């Protein structure tokens, strides 16, 4: 009779197995992660319970049920339709749209201006370099809030009243109530016109991609950018005439107190955009300059030795290498613009912080949900901008093989 091994382990054996498992790095790390996760959840539950208990102790209402209650106050500038009787949720949406508008416009302007100033800083012309340098040093070294308030009170609030408005061009009006411009209105044949414009843009982009591929394959160049610009400008112009003016313009006209019709932005928006883009453009200028200066002189000399034309040297030799240095700090500047736009509250532009975290919070008294929603929004925007820019950054980084 053979002796079968005992199926149930002895107590000593079980203990041995547990201690062996605890010494196993993989099992131990899983265990630690599970425990940490539990601790985080427990802490979160405790915080929520504690907050609710404290709010109850102070007889204050909590929760998200206020979101469909009518807000009841007016908002001076909205991108999406809003009326005083709309819900708090709508106010949240209005605030988000306004914040995003400020961020996008300021980022575009700051980038254009920043590149311009950054290149001017590198100019061999002493006057251009000095002007660009003093611009950067003055604007960069004063607080942004101060600049916003200075632009608002020092410039846009001092503009003439509506009756004495400055008319920059036909339909472009500037006064202390805002900046007014003509609004496009769709007429008959507009959808065809829109399709033509879209087609022209797609064709121009396709042309550029094709030219790039051909350049890499055969070394033959094609002036894709110039051709593309010409297509995007002239094809819609031709279509506009042929289709019998499918777009008409709604002009702002002085009626009663203010100009009505057309598009308009309030003075607080103008002050905010000017201040934000000027301030950020200084940092972007320095980033561009540092990026370009990081390209070693030998690269330029090599390009010169190959007799490359100077615009090619910039576009094909300097910029691709400079971009690796430029992109990461540029990402953080874009994130800063988005967050700095919350300073709008100082001059009363209805951005998210102003209409949501200030007005709505005060009118509804729901501090915790409102602050949480605001934080979630800024977090989401910053993380998505960062994600998009990181993808782009990967593409311009050195391709190591």
């Amino acid at each position, binding site marked *: 009779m053979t002796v079968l091994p005992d199926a149930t382990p002895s107590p000593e054996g079980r203990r041995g197995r547990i201690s062996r498992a605890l010494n196993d790095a993989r099992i131990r790390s899983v265990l630690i992660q599970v425990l940490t996760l539990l601790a985080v959840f427990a802490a979160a539950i405790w915080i929520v319970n504690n907050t609710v208990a404290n709010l109850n102790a102070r007889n204050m209402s909590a929760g998200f049920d206020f979101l469909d209650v009518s807000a*009841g106050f007016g908002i001076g500038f909205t991108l999406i339709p809003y009326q005083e009787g709309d819900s708090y949720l709508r106010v949240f949406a209005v605030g988000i749209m306004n914040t995003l508008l400020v961020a996008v416009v300021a980022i575009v302007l700051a980038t254009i201006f920043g590149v311009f100033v950054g290149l001017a800083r590198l100019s061999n012309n002493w006057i251009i370099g000095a002007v660009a340098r003093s611009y950067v040093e003055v604007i960069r070294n004063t607080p942004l809030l101060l600049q916003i308030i200075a632009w608002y009170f020092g410039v846009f609030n001092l503009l003439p009243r509506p009756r004495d408005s400055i008319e920059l061009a036909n339909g472009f009006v500037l006064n202390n109530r805002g900046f007014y411009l003509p609004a496009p209105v769709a007429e008959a044949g507009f959808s065809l016109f829109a399709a033509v414009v879209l087609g022209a843009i797609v064709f121009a982009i396709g042309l550029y991609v094709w030219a790039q591929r051909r350049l890499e394959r055969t070394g033959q160049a094609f002036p894709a950018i110039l051709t593309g610009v010409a297509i995007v400008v002239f094809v819609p112009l031709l279509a506009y005439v042929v289709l019998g003016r499918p777009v008409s313009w709604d002009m702002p006209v002085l009626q009663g107190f203010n100009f009505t019709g057309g598009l308009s932005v309030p003075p607080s928006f103008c002050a905010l955009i000017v201040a934000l883009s000027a301030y950020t453009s200084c940092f972007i200028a320095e980033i561009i300059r540092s990026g370009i200066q990081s390209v070693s002189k030998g690269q330029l000399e090599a390009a010169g030795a190959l007799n490359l034309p100077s615009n090619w040297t910039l576009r094909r030799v300097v910029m691709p290498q400079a971009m690796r240095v430029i992109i990461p700090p540029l990402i953080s500047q874009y994130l800063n613009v988005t967050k700095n736009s919350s300073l709008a509250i100082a001059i009363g532009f209805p951005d998210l912080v102003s209409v949501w975290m200030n007005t709505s919070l*005060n009118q509804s008294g729901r501090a915790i949900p409102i602050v949480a929603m605001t934080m979630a929004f800024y977090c989401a925007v910053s993380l998505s901008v960062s994600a998009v820019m990181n993808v782009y950054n990967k593409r311009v980084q050195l391709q190591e093989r």
Partner: protein
Amino acid sequence: MKKTLFTCGILAAFAATPAVAQETLQTVRDRGILNCQVGLPTPGFYQLADDGMWSGMDVDMCRAVSAAIFGDPDQVEYQSVTSAVRFTSLANAESDMLSRTTTWTAVRDTQLGLDFTAINFYDGQGFMVPADTGITSALELDGATICVLTGTTTELNLADYFRANGMSFTPVTNENVNVLVETYLGGGCDAYTNDKSGLAARRSAFPDPSAHVFLPETVSKEPLGPVVRQGDDAWANLVRWTIYGLMNAEELGVTSENVQEMTGSADPNIARLLGSEGNIGEELGVSPTFMVDAIAAVGNYGEIYERHVGADTAIGIPREGTLNALWTEGGLIYAPPFR
């Protein structure tokens, strides 16, 4: 031994209740200072002199409460905060009471953890426009740009009024009243709206007050008064009855000048008010003669009104025939009896 156990039991029971909601009076006594929240300086109601002294009608409410507790009206620390954060500041116990032209509304009373004590000024919202615009009625303001303080009932009333009358407007908002007034004076809006007392107070500080006129419409009712945190009824009672005491004093003819002689008055109403009879003061947790101290320090309601916002001041809001006259003279100032 039994007594000690009993005391311990009581102490334990009280320790279990949240300290923040109770015993404000004891906290104030221990601190030796009353933390009183006012707004950004506003003439007549809470204004700040060059030497750093606060004065005004709402400031006197704090001084009266301080006098009632300490016998000294100056044991007050004033906290000047914007209207947008006033209730948060009170809820966090940074201030013991709030006295700053705050409107009593249902939402504030029931959802924000606030307790309105008494109404010390009956106000209504109005509009101010530059005189040279020639506007004579709020109904002519269709399409106007209007400056309004954010986080206030004014902001909501403004929207309601224009909606009710089928008119449109563009609000220019800010939480800082000084920024808003600068915007208005710079022509950034066609009209400035606020409680009428607030309009009068602001205008009195303009470089040229006569260049601005008030429109006749009153578009809302704004009962203003001091506010405390909900949950400490004893404290709310003390603030409430100090203010009612000032109103009763005016009705009974007790002033800051004659209050000492009046303590010997044969009128039982006056005797109860001034603590020579009854135990109202003790039951409120202060000295029996707390109203003597309060009235001696700031005067009765009528004196306070005339000193800070009355017809003879720069603000110049006549009292006669308005809601803020005593009920015996056709107004709404009507304090429950001191008995």
